[in-house]
């Protein structure tokens, strides 16, 4: 938290630093009162593993972007459909990350998340996208990010 | 020139949103558009160098105002009764506009650094902010020191507003007199669309 403050600030005087520290403390306090600081929140360990996944994801996104742009110029070629995808994540955060990654790649949007059995309902723009989902790579990478898979 | 284009297109955009907001009858859409209006207006403020104002407009117009409007809408009918364009108000509005338009032609040119407004009091703020107050953000120094009484008033306006709202709907005993409308909302919004 405090590091985030430091990143934002750009001005380092004694007063501001101490205020920043107090702020970070205060926010933590209020957040805990709100009950948002449980393990559903973002574990810090993620940041270590993030860059690798991010790079891969960026590439995926660019690819699918191109695919969707093509469809935009030819809307008739769309084959919208819904499919179920199962995630292998153990934590809620992991599942959410998976769902978000699915959404982040254009062409697929996670519509519903069944928490009980780790299924994600996905809306895909074409068959190709739907096919792509069954590819377990993304699932694996998210799980990896989550840390449940080595 | 580019600045002008950005300006003009943003304002045109604003006008577009404003007209839409007033034309639509679905109140929800109206509120959303007014949120969008605020966003674009904030962008316009950035273009005009008023970063603090943009900050505020974004936080207030798009944030709190919209949220409050939604909270209000959840208690209200979703549709406005259709109205035709009324002539008298249109006339009045046009009149006001014309009056202003006449006035504008006399005003200093937009952005003219020689305009009196930039040469009378403002320079002292800019110099003073550096020397007497030592705060880089001139807006802050003017706001909180030179014209801090205004800001005090502003704080009190907010205070007054919350008092007013609490008095009006924070009520203890003022149960509504006609309850029948309260339930209908969910259905109405689901049919919406």
């Amino acid at each position, binding site marked *: 938290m405090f590091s985030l403050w430091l990143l934002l600030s750009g001005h380092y005087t004694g007063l501001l630093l101490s205020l920043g520290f107090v702020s970070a403390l205060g926010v933590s306090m209020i957040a805990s009162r709100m009950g948002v600081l449980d393990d559903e929140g973002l574990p810090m360990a993620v940041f270590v593993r993030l860059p690798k996944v991010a790079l891969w994801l960026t590439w995926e996104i660019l690819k699918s972007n191109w695919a969707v742009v093509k469809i935009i110029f030819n809307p008739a070629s769309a084959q919208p459909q819904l499919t179920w995808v199962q995630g292998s994540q153990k934590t809620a*955060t992991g599942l959410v990350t998976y769902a978000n990654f699915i959404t982040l790649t254009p062409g697929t949007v996670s519509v519903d998340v069944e928490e009980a059995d780790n299924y994600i309902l996905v809306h895909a723009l074409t068959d190709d996208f739907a096919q792509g989902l069954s590819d377990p790579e993304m699932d694996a990478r998210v799980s990896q990010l989550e840390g449940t898979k080595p | 020139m580019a600045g002008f284009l950005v300006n003009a297109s943003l304002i045109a955009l604003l006008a577009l949103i404003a007209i839409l907001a007033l034309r639509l009858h679905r109140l929800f859409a109206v509120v959303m558009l007014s949120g969008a209006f605020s966003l674009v207006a904030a962008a316009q403020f950035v273009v005009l160098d008023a970063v603090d104002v943009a900050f505020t407009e974004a936080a207030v117009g798009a944030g709190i105002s919209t949220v409050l409007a939604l909270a209000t809408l959840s208690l209200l009918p979703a549709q406005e009764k259709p109205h035709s364009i009324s002539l008298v108000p249109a006339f009045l509005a046009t009149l006001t506009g014309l009056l202003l338009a006449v006035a504008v032609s006399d005003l200093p040119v937009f952005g003219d650094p020689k305009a009196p407004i930039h040469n009378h009091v403002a320079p002292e703020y800019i110099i003073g902010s550096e020397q007497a107050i030592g705060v880089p953000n001139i807006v802050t120094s003017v706001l909180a020191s030179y014209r801090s009484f205004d800001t005090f008033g502003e704080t009190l306006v907010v205070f007054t507003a919350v008092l007013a709202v609490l008095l009006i709907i924070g009520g203890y005993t003022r149960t509504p007199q006609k309850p029948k409308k309260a339930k209908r909302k969910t259905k109405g919004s689901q049919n919406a669309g």
Partner: protein
Amino acid sequence: MQDDIVIRVVAKVMIPAVMLFALYVQFHGDYGPGGGFQAGVIFASAFVLNAVVFGLNKGRHVWPARYNLMGICGGVLLYGFTGVAGMVLGKNFLNFNVLSSDPVAGQHLGILLVEFGVGLTVAAVMVMLFFTFAGRTAHLRLLSKSDAHERKVSASKTAKKVKK
């Protein structure tokens, strides 16, 4: 909304971030855009998010209304008394030069305090406004469910009374 896991998880990440950002805006108003008012609004929006996602009652628990009102009044009074301090110290109302031995430092301190007062008030006010507006709905809904009939009777009575 708390039945939607995606929103819930993301909100949990976002809320502290928003609050921290608000405080950052609050205290860096001197250097960049922002200040007490903006910070207050942003801070309040964290609460709004919290209440929207996790329900109003949970949201209320975080910050009881009584303290909230105190926050509002406290902010105003902080501002006011910062000004009065200048008066006590021999200058006019809202003179910050005298708050510290060095006028510039005094101004700085004064601005900081004053902005904090604004921020406190605005944050509390906005939270209060939101809870009041949103609470009205819950209030009505509850009423209409539990004793719709009874109130219809009393409402017609009131109406009659009014007519008289």
